[in-house]
């Protein structure tokens, strides 16, 4: 399972919302963090999130069973490790 942890602050909410548009993705809460999970790769389109760059590039809090293979102005791609 690929799990991406994202802190629940207003700036990060669009990142979680865009990730959740993938039907394979589930979103739970672990304390004040969103746990964005998928059995496969998670891809988040930056432009769809509307996040400014500083928010985008600091939105990931943790990775479990996963590694980031793309994190640029276009997308964040998190793949099973």
């Amino acid at each position, binding site marked *: 399972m690929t799990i991406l942890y994202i*802190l629940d*602050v207003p700036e990060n909410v669009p990142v979680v919302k865009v990730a959740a548009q993938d039907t394979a993705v589930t979103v739970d809460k672990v*304390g*004040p963090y969103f746990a964005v999970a998928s059995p496969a790769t998670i891809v988040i389109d930056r432009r769809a999130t509307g996040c400014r760059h500083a928010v985008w590039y600091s939105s990931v*809090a943790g990775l*479990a069973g996963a590694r980031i293979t793309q994190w640029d102005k276009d997308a964040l791609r998190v793949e099973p490790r």
Partner: protein
Amino acid sequence: MTGLSHKAKGVDHAAFPTFDPAATVRFYRDVLGFPVVHSICAAGWGPEDHPDFIHFFFDIGNGDRIAFFYYFGLEPPAGGPQGDVYARFAADAPRFFIRSRHLAIHVDSDEDLTEYQRRLDGSEWPCTLRLQHETIESIYTDDPNGYMIEFTRALRPVTPQEDLDANLTIDALLDVVSGGNPSMDALLTRKAELIVERAADWEQRREAAQNEGAQRELTRS
């Protein structure tokens, strides 16, 4: 949490050398409007090679101060082509590294940030950038000595979960640097473990601590 009481009261002064006191006073006093609040005229009575100097201070708000040393007759030490008057770097030193050290002065509002931008833009030292970061908005310029000065305002208050997150980040960082071969990947993997260990019941622990505090207050009154 270290359990140590926190008694510090902010910055008394942060001190920097200058070789151009006239421009430094123009920048801080005449452009920014920071009052001169203290100065020391000191004879170089200490070590034989210590020049006479003036140590002067500007109020940067909240009673905090930025201070300068001007040494009579001192030439800037040699160095590379990049940097400020205190630190010179070789041509191949990364710019992001050189630009990492800076002083950020807090303002309370968008209006105040814009006012300092207006003052700077009308001077010899215009703003080089205005940028919204994660939760702050900042303007930047270089003072006459090449020191990077930032003015910043909070876009919103910091939340308690951000304090938790900061502490988990630092604990994860200490773990990955002590493990050798530190990287962002290693940090985010370690931090995920700490989130599972410490974040799940954070809210309950926080509420319990707050209730305990409230109980203590009630007991005292």
